[in-house]
């Protein structure tokens, strides 16, 4: 069997993979020797402030030997970083021209690279984050769980898989134990399961006039689609509630008749007709209908309770199933109205009996008359065998638990592991039989540190501070948590157990396989949402009076657009620079309406060519512009900071305390543009130091309002997007910034590499990672800077493949 695997994997490796260059090649790609860094540059431009007497910012370069990269590594890396990004010398001080600066930086970097004592860094033991936990449960048990079982991860440190932030507290541990119990019962089907009620709410501020997505049937609009885990076979009740008006709590749109469809896994459960009776003025709306007005009372009661009839009870088999509610397109129409003032969805819930109805929520209650079923996907995953009639159950239990634990713990199961689990199994068996025993042991697996924690061991005998290759099993875990945000699958585990995974050919083949897999999408969506802070769009709330058209459908569409662009760039293996200059994007009807692109209908996203040079690339996306704005206006500073953080890798320091707020436009006074109100940034030298880097970037985007729409004036004043960068060059508008970034490949390119490396490895980068970043930069430069090369280079880099041994005192392991 094992040989077959080897043959298959080799064949796959040979057939499936274009020729990658190995680690050895990367070392050979180091640049030829350059001259020593020119000391006079430092003396002329730096020492005026950074000398022994002044020690500006705690740094002196006066007597530093800049050629001694070995001794002065951390300081020199900082120097290189500051002068490459143009932050130093500060604005207004003399600086050398771009070519000289680059040559000097290159010379320093060359020294640093040569002197670089490889240091792969060390990731502390940490727990799975929430995304990883949910995915692991899905992959292990074929079960969708509600992420709300666990608290959200702290958003503090850059990426949410940063090991420093993923600690376990006793409170969190107790949540894990509760969650393990629930998951165990859900996976097995607990005959003691009580009837429960789950409510799924639609967003109040998403338009429900169009089809919301591919999960919903064609020819319908609005509503919601959810994946609900039905714990057992049984009867379940589905109750639909329609949206209400703010005044009087009457049902929106109840004046007309509508048809509501409820479906489970696309099978029609029921069609309900609601509305259209008792039209006309509602006397009970504000005052209450007088007692003798029976007709009025009936009308008012109807308006309040017409959707009480929207419930149905049907038998459903256990498993996670798609449940959808939506309105049939009974009377599709273009609106025959006069042009109306736009009004925000947040404002127009006043009293709207004649408007468009909406689904507020669906409640799923059950199970009633439940039965445990033999056949759900989770049970099939768990019960790899069944105890025979005359055999003892324990051998089968061993097999089941070993299979589960091996996948969950990401390593072969030891006798000690099994002994613990079997002890629990026996306890459960005594009380409730075979399945109860399995259930108890499964819970234990789910709160075991071996599952929850990612722990790597130094090899026995490793000297403290020395660098060693991580074991194949540890590498398998690193790979699967990077690319799949989950535990390794069977094939990956098997290759790792055979100690083949670290072999370059095998490693490349597995990476290729993992990227091609459906799960290979997970890192792309997760990474782009965090790197580009797109997930902030989901919590942004633009002022409904200033941006009445903004609603949840637009919010979701914006975020999706950027996710799709990034995914397509990676899948099509483009250059990382193409993200900035992509001449295509993805829109659906709602987003096309926002961008004023005509002729796009339907909620599904489709690829469109971008011809407007102002919208080309990532920086033209509404998501980026919205995530870096305030609720009521754009922010030059936030946008500048965003670019510096995410694309240039030169984050500004935090602002000093007690900065007064910006003067807002007062009603009545003549409006001034944002730019003119920010003049104080330029006039005050203390402010200018940091804002000289941020503001010019932000000004270039002032034509995009706080929701990413193009505008030509700001409060009536013309918008001036020309600005001077900190290094003296001038840019104008989004196209200018794009050119600026593309011409500074060292900044953008290195930032992308740094971000991906940080994300893959799960720790912040230190000064000793800088040579690794440069090495990767050289490697991908030889291959068109493509994403596949970058991903592979990150995986084959020291921080990913290796680990620095600790000071001792921790358990160690055989390799």
């Amino acid at each position: 069997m094992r040989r077959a695997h080897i043959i298959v994997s080799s064949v796959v490796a040979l057939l499936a993979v274009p020729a990658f260059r190995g680690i050895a090649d990367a070392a050979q790609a180091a640049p030829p020797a350059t001259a020593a860094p020119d000391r006079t540059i430092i003396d002329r431009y730096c020492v005026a402030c950074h000398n022994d007497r002044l020690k500006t910012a705690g740094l002196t370069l006066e007597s530093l030997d800049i050629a001694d990269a070995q001794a002065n590594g951390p300081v020199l890396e900082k120097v290189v970083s500051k002068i490459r990004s143009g932050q130093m010398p500060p604005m207004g001080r003399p600086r050398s021209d771009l070519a000289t600066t680059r040559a000097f930086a290159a010379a320093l970097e060359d020294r640093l690279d040569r002197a670089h004592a490889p240091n792969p860094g060390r990731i502390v033991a940490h727990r799975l984050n929430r995304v990883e936990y949910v995915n692991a449960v899905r992959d292990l048990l074929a079960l969708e769980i509600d992420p709300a079982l666990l608290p959200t991860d702290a958003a503090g440190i850059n990426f949410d898989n940063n090991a420093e932030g993923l600690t376990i507290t006793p409170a969190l541990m107790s949540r894990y134990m509760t969650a393990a119990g629930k998951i165990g019962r859900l996976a097995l089907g607990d005959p003691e399961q009580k009837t429960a009620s789950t409510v799924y709410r639609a967003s109040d501020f998403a338009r429900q006039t169009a089809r919301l997505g591919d999960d919903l049937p064609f020819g319908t609009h609005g509503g919601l689609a959810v994946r609900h885990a039905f714990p057992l076979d049984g009867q379940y009740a589905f109750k639909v509630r329609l949206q209400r008006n703010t005044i009087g709590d009457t049902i929106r749109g109840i004046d007309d008749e509508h048809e509501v469809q409820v479906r489970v896994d696309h099978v029609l459960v029921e069609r309900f007709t609601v509305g259209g009776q008792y039209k006309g003025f509602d006397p009970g709306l504000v005052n209450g209908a007088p007692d003798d007005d029976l007709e009025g009372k009936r009308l008012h009661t109807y308006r309040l309770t017409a959707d009480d009839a929207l419930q149905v009870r049907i038998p459903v088999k256990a498993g996670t199933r798609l449940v959808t509610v939506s309105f049939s397109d009974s009377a599709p129409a273009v609106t025959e109205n006069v042009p109306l003032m736009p009004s925000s969805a947040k404002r127009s819930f006043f009293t709207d009996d004649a408007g468009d109805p909406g689904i507020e929520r669906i409640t799923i209650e059950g199970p009633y008359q439940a039965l445990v079923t033999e056949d759900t996907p989770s049970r099939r995953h768990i019960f790899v065998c069944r105890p025979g009639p005359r055999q003892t159950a324990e051998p089968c239990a061993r097999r089941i638990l070993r299979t589960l634990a091996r996948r969950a713990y990401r390593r072969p199961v030891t006798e000690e592991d099994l002994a613990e689990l079997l002890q629990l199994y026996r306890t459960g068996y005594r009380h409730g039989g075979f399945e109860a025993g399995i259930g108890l042991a499964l819970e234990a697996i789910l709160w075991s540190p071996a599952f929850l924690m990612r722990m790597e061991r130094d090899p026995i005998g490793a000297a403290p501070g020395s660098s060693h290759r991580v074991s194949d099993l540890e590498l398998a875990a690193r790979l699967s948590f990077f690319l799949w945000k989950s535990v390794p699958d069977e094939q990956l585990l098997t290759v790792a157990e055979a100690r083949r995974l670290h072999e370059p050919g095998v490693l490349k083949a597995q990476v290729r396989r993992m990227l091609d897999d459906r799960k290979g999408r997970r890192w792309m969506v997760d990474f782009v949402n965090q790197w580009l802070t797109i997930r902030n769009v989901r919590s942004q709330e633009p002022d409904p009076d200033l941006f009445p058209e903004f609603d949840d459908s637009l919010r979701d569409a914006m975020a999706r657009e950027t996710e799709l662009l990034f995914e397509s760039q990676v899948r099509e293996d483009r250059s990382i620079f193409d993200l900035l200059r992509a001449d295509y994007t993805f829109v659906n009807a709602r987003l096309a309406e926002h961008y004023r692109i005509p002729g796009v209908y339907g909620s599904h996203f489709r690829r469109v060519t971008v011809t407007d040079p102002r919208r080309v690339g990532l920086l033209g996306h509404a998501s980026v512009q919205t995530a870096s704005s305030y609720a009521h206006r754009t922010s030059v500073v936030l946008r500048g900071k965003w670019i510096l953080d995410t694309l240039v890798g030169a984050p500004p320091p935090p602002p000093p305390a007690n900065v007064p707020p910006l003067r807002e436009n007062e009603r009545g006074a003549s409006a001034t543009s944002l730019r003119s109100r920010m003049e104080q940034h330029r006039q005050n030298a203390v402010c200018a130091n940091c804002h000289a880097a941020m503001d010019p970037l932000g000004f270039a985007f002032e034509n995009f309002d706080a929701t990413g729409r193009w505008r030509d004036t700001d409060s009536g004043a013309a918008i001036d997007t020309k600005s001077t960068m900190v290094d003296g060059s001038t840019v104008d508008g989004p196209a200018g910034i794009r050119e600026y970034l593309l011409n500074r490949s060292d900044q953008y390119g290195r930032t992308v590499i740094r971000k991906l490396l940080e994300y893959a490895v799960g720790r912040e980068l230190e000064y000793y990672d800088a040579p690794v970043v440069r090495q990767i930069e050289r490697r991908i430069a030889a291959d068109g800077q493509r994403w596949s090369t970058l991903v592979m280079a990150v995986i084959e880099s020291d921080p990913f493949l290796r680990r620095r041994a600790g000071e001792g005192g921790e358990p160690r392991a055989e390799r």
Partner: protein
Amino acid sequence: MAGGAWRFGPWVWLVVVAVRPLGAAPTTLTVPDLRLVVAAQEGDVRQVRLLIAARVEVNTPRPDGTTPLMWAAHRDDLEMANVLLEAGAKVDPTDEQGVGPLALAAENGSLTLVNRLLSAGADARRAQANGVTPLMIAARVGSLPVVKALLAAGADPSAAIPSTGQTALMWATAERHREVVLALLAGGANVRAASAIGFTPLLFAARNGDLDTAAVLVEAGADVNQSGNDGTHALPLAIVSGHQAVAKYLIERGANVNGTMHGVSALHAAAGKVDLWIRDWLRARRASVDARSTAGLPANERVELTKLLLARGAPVNARTAVSTFVGLGISGRNGARDPISTHVGDLKGATPLWVAAYWANGAGPDAAAAVEIMRVLLAAGADHSATTADGTTPLMAAAGLGHGSYQPGADRGARSVSAEAAVAALVEAGADVNAVNEARFTALHGAAFRGLNEVIEYLVQHGASLNAQDFRGRTAFRIAQGAQQGFRVQPWPSTAALIEKLGADTTIGVDGLTDERERARALGPARSRP
């Protein structure tokens, strides 16, 4: 078993599924094989090919009726569509709503896919359960090549949706797709069709202000005087929608200047915003009750249009025909006596002069234009004594009745130069300064409600009775002390002082603020606002 087999990819699945393991109980019901339709939905062409090669049924629908071919059409995936059609996919399946591949291809505006389906025999005339045809969808999307292809394949250009009466031509016009409109007309679309609510294609163009398309429709035989089923005429509709060029065009082509929209004439619409009078018209079209139309015509265009309409014989004293109340449909039973009515009742029967006078009580260029319009109307013989059904005269409206104010802490209302000019124009034309409406409000009361000191002075100088009492016995002085307007109470101390200075009898009645508080208390704590 499942644990080991899926290492090897899809091939093993086929084997495992097709060959039943020994000892498994035979199943009595057939479970449909959904793998192909799932692969098609996900756009996995490779998987689709594999499954077809393994002889999986290519027409198996998802439980809601969607087939693999429908997903290929929805995703605009020609390769997959070819693969499926060559494997025998039915070209005209429909799901439970009657949606089929051709409709989905039309929604994408995809000529390649539409042609592929038509060449495979798709029926261009087939409609969904709700009556929507692929041609309508293509017309709405604005894809000219697809529209032409469908017409050539026999699609019916005049098909209408049974519930709404809307047609492809209406959809194309509504979305401003002029070329598509031309193609549909060339294909025989009925240019005079009317929807169930009431729009014709021309009315859509008038609403949009789309002069080019309007001209195309008229050239093709649209009747400028054909009203929708509810009597909406294109001329007032164009004016309410704020499109002067289209309005002029319609007049040139013989539009009847008497044409109305919900009982409101073109001249009313030119004289000022008529939202108040078309509220039920808006609600019938699903506008929410607090919806407002856009600003409409700019001020100078209003004046110009008024003159033009009068020159063409528009009746200067036309009356609006439908009852309407200020107060968002909440009040109405008590007319002008209702506390939140802003002191006017049923505004049916307003003349263009009344409309202009109402808007003159405001600020900015629109109010100034309203004054100019009033002068034009008066010169053309407008009747200054023509009241609305509740007895409110244009003078009362210009002075301030029908408008609510709430400016807490303000001494008096914001000055309205236009209101002063409007009031003067009416008085000079002979308006009765002491007329009362159904709740015994006078123009002076109106100005007191608004805190307009200059208007008060003018009215008093021209004979207004300073101590006239309303139906509650309040004088202008008491009102200025404090009166409920809409949902709130507004005092104007400076206005009250002025009225006192002018010689009002300040002993009549109860202090305004006290009065309001007593009323609130009398109604009980939970309902201090009636």
